[in-house]
């Protein structure tokens, strides 16, 4: 059991890692969007400052860089929060995925330029300077598909369909944003493909980041933490990193309890247990006839033991729920913290 450090106690939710709130699902999207902006900036800067390539390379370079950046962000983001694999095991597949995504997108777009007029039956389809959603949509979908496939390949096929679908959705979102933001007639102010390409890149990356790989529940584990004045901040993990279900007992029994609270708060010797259900969820079970409430927003659940019932009452727990024991002076909270905290 850890002791509370003096000074600021941020251990409840650590800012450096992602708290278990709904907002955790935005983190991969924001990370991918940031990488996309960096890639967009690099392409724009190179194109404006040096223009080392012709107009027919603009699209392949832009989408290729975007795809590479999003793949790198998605895989790198996962590595950041799932640190069980070594760097070497991560780096080679990730590097191969990034290079493969960029190279394949680039190569297919370069050669697609010759095929497009044949497919569409229109010479305009091959014009490198033509700004057209009709002729560019396939490129966006190709880019999205490549992101999904390459990320899934680097993850050894896990979630292939989800990531491929997310990639296609990202392609659609990117194309729509690129076109609408880049077309002055649709925009509030004067817009062009500077903003169009920027917004398109962000939409593409954020969509894939949000849909392609979400932060899994397995990265968070439950803790019981005392929030009443006595023993404030004392906490115990409900389960370990081995994934096996465990149960923690809270009361005032002097020996053998996982979390012992003071006796003067009408806390029973064996008052409540909080355990993992083995499926990623947690439950609280009342073990005494003394007062035992689980409190959450607009809800209060009475878990007092009823001798007339064959089994104790129990309720699922969500992160942030409070468990009030005895006369109310003893309160513990249930929080889910990143597995690194355990």
């Amino acid at each position, binding site marked *: 059991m850890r002791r509370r450090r003096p000074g600021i106690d941020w251990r409840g939710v650590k800012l450096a890692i992602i708290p278990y709130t*709904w907002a955790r699902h935005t983190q991969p999207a924001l990370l991918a969007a940031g990488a996309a902006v960096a890639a967009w900036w690099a392409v724009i800067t190179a*194109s404006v400052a040096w223009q080392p390539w012709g*107009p027919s390379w603009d699209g392949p370079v832009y989408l290729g860089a975007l795809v590479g950046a999003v793949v790198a962000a998605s895989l790198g983001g996962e590595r950041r929060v799932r640190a069980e694999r070594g760097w070497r095991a991560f780096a080679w597949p990730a590097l191969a995925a990034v290079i493969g995504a960029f190279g394949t997108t680039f190569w297919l777009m370069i050669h697609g330029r010759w095929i497009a007029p044949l497919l569409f039956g229109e010479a305009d389809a091959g014009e490198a300077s033509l700004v057209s959603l009709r002729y560019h949509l396939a490129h966006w979908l190709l880019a999205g598909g490549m992101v999904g496939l390459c990320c899934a390949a680097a993850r050894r096929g896990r979630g292939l369909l989800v990531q491929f679908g997310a990639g296609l959705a990202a392609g659609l979102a990117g194309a729509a944003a690129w076109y609408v933001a880049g077309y002055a007639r649709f925009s509030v102010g004067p817009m062009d493909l*500077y903003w169009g390409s920027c917004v398109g890149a962000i939409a593409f990356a954020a969509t894939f980041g949000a849909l392609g790989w979400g932060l899994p529940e397995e990265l968070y584990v439950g803790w019981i933490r005392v929030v009443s004045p006595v023993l404030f901040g004392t906490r115990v993990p409900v389960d370990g990193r081995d994934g096996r279900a465990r149960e923690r007992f809270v009361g005032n029994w002097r020996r053998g309890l996982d979390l012992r609270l003071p006796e003067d708060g009408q806390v029973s010797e064996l008052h409540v247990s909080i355990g993992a259900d083995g499926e990623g969820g947690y439950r609280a079970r009342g073990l005494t006839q003394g007062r035992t409430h689980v409190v959450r927003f607009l809800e209060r659940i009475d878990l007092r033991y009823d001798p007339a019932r064959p089994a104790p009452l129990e309720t699922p727990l969500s992160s942030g729920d409070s468990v009030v024991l005895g006369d109310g002076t003893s309160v513990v909270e249930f929080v889910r913290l990143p597995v690194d905290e355990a």
Partner: protein
Amino acid sequence: MSPALVLALLGCGAALDPVPGTTARLDAPAAQVANRRDLAVRVFRDADECAAVVHEVEACVPWLDRATGQVRLAFRLELDGQPKAAALTEENVEIFHKSQQVKEGEDVRVEIIPHDPERTPRLFVLLLDASGSMAIDDEGKGQTRMDLVRAALTRRDVVDAFFGAESQNAVIPLVFSGEGPPRPLGGRWVVTSAAEWTGLVRDHLQVSAGYTWLYQAVEFATGSLFDVPEVARSLTARTREPVVIALTDGFNNQSGDDVCATNAPRLERLLAHLDEVRRGTRTSLERRPLVFTVGLGRAAWRNVPVIESTSVRASQICKGFGDVRIDGELERAGVDNAALDRIARTGGGSVFVRRDTRGLAEAFKAAAATRYGWFEARYQVDPFHLRRSFESRLRLLTAGGPTANLVFQPSGWIDGPPGVADEDGWTRRAPLAATLVTALGLLACFVVLAYLPAAFVNALRLLRGRVRI
């Protein structure tokens, strides 16, 4: 080794010139074929070309802003490959975007901005009609046509235009009426001072008898005149450039029997002469005059067609009035603006038709306007028209209509930072650092958005007493 060079070595460098500050490129220029001396429009393509000839490189380099639909090109006139200063306005230059003429209107702007005012002295040849019709008092206010001309020529602003401060300009005042070459006003071939000029016009500009031998007078003023010793000295002594301004109040009319159609072969001869002295190989460069025409009165013809050729048909200048006598009949309709337009076009100048002293003064000032070394042509169209490769073409409204063009190949995917708007609404190149500002701003937003929920959760927990400070 620069990235551009690396990529060029890899074989992906394009034979296209970049448009600085944008992601657009310029197509390779078309090969120019010049088989005779001629006026040409040269459009500057890049900073190197600009730096070689102008100081304001930033204004000279082509620019394209797809956010606002603005396009800018810079050009100068060249005669036989040598720079030729000119006084151009929007009326002298036609701009075409993708073969469509760009005309000022709603959401469409056109502007010609001159740069580098020319200091080369000029020799103005003022060819004034002194035929009998100049004694007519059109308004009935006791002021004849000649009085209007006299008043215009002695106005301070007109005199300043001819003899501007510190200029070394000179004026040759010639009057014509009847057969024979024009005569110098007051016997003075060359006038170099404003005071002398004013006195000369006031004292000697009079109406004389005779018909209007306009074409003969123009031919003389653009040819034989430069053989007169005083004139030749004046031209060469200070390397003055000749500018002929011909004023008349009617039609070329050499006898009482002349009908309109009679003028067609005469005008054709004159245009051939003008074409030769302006563009032929037999005339030395310093003797190539610019010819402006000024009509006093109302225009006799409406909707004069633009014809660049030197061949003239009666139907072109007379419409259905080829058999109508000029003297006493056709000349009552007004000034032969069709013929004056052909003369001015072939002469590289402009035509003005004005009815009063002020209008005449404006015409004289325009003809004597300061010339400039190079120009910016700016136009703004619907940004929609910049969403594929396009040609911007300039066409000078003079004989031969020299043209020049640039073919822009904008990117089909990305753009550089949008231009920064000046006070007049035209945009100029934004610094490349603007992209960094954009990117860093967005990244900062993402970082804030990433940490905001965590900060919010901690703040809430702090308020609820779940954490303590």
